[in-house]
């Protein structure tokens, strides 16, 4: 991973000017490199990391473990692609272990999410079982600590 990419992983909102200074290259080079990341699909998008507790919106997230029957010739792709069409589904991973697909689903209330699972997900062809865990508290996301600010214990001045 190159240094520009690392910096964007730290904070995607550094300006091109700041990035150029930090890396000792020109702003033009920074812009070109970022465009290259985007065009090649290395970077698919930019979104803030949010502490939803601080936002006046009803929101519930659940992680759902799915067992599915893979289709001949298509494996897990076909069912995964059908599931990801739902707006409620935020992430979907094919995983190793005791189940096949790990998905996260967001809704306004517990009931919304429960109904989504019961009415949309479970009845789908090929889904053999689901196990839903509601997220109660988020401690860390994308390397950012959500709960408390990490405090600098070094004091403000030392020699």
């Amino acid at each position, binding site marked *: 991973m190159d*240094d520009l990419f690392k*910096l964007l992983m*730290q*904070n995607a909102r*550094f300006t091109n000017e*700041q990035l150029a*200074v*930090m*890396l*000792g290259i020109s702003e033009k080079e920074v812009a070109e490199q970022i465009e290259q990341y985007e065009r090649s699909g290395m970077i698919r998008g930019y979104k803030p990391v949010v502490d939803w507790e601080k936002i006046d919106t009803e929101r519930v997230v659940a992680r759902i473990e799915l067992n599915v029957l893979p289709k001949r010739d298509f494996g897990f792709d076909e069912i995964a692609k059908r599931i990801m069409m739902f707006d409620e589904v935020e992430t979907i991973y094919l995983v190793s272990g005791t189940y096949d697909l790990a998905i996260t689903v967001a809704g306004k209330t517990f009931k919304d999410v429960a109904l989504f699972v019961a009415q949309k997900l479970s009845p789908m062809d090929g889904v053999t079982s689901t196990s839903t865990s509601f997220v109660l508290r988020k401690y860390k996301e994308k390397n950012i600590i959500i709960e408390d600010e990490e405090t*600098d214990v*070094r*004091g*403000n*001045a*030392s*020699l």
Partner: protein
Amino acid sequence: MDYNRLLSQKVQEIKPSGIRKFFDIANEMTGVISLGVGEPDFKTPWSIREAGIESLEKSQTWYTSNAGLMELRREICHYLNRRFSLDYHPENEVVITVGGSEAIDLCIRALVNEGEEVLIPEPCFVAYTPVAQLCNAVPVPIVTKAEDHFRLTAQALKEKITPKTKLLILPFPNNPTGAVMRREHLEEIAEVLRGTDIMVLSDEIYAELTYNGNHVSIASLDGMKERTILVNGFSKSYAMTGWRLGYACGPAPVIQQMTKIHQFAIMSAPTTSQYAAIEAVKNCDDDIRRMANEYNIRRRLIVDSFNKLGLTCFEPEGAFYIFPSIQSTGLSSEDFCEKLLYAEKVAVVPGTAFGGCGEGFIRVSYSYSPSHIIEAVKRIEHFLQTL
């Protein structure tokens, strides 16, 4: 009781740091965005911490030999050879100390007699002068200048050498200026010292943090090893300040006397830290490089930001400090720092903390994340507009 009468005269005569009051205020204020610390923000790499934990689990909780674990001394010698082409014998040319600070103390005490002169390039770290004073030696400051990129020049050195000169402190890469002595600059100094009886205490604690080429130790130059005591440690390069572990390497007769003082004052450096340090020096070259690379990114950011603010600084090549001039504001260093602290809650250190010639400068640490630095610079910019 009249403690003034009871206490050692010499100790009482040592000046407490003039900016202690400022530090007390800064350290007690909350909501401060600081650029004031002199230690890494990184955590000690996990494998090193794990080695420390493992040593505790194995009950390795006794004293080590006075000079330190032989395995650690051996690994340090390998490391110094691999990184800086230095050759030391672990048996009698290395002593493990409680931080680089103790090594500085031991070295000065082992070498100087009453009335002898210790040359100290300033601005510099604060420990050398008081230790020399405790030995009844005479600290002789050598002023280094911004126009020389705060390097020690052969000319400035020659001017201060007298028949009483015993020891030259060579604190590079430098705290607080970030100055680095490259091979050609060291060669000039070596040329002055060869053929004299002047010893060198080369404090290379920031050796791994140089940004325009590998650090060169004066001990690696022809004819210098025999007159140099190299001080280094784990605090800065491995982010291990709290482990309190450093070392000195030098000619066996000097190390022998230093170890004698160490034996009586300290016994042996912390055992847990020594085991952790074996892991550090053996297997963590990549961690050093990762952290140094990160510092370099911040260095470019902060140098550029301060120059844009009009607080000009030369490009520092080592450590993790910049030393910008604040003379354009018309304020003294201490006034500048105090006003900035109260007005914008940004902590930086007055240059005068590191010697009188630091007047007109401040020390700014970039041992902070880029986002933190950007926020602090914004506040400083606002402060400058209100002046």
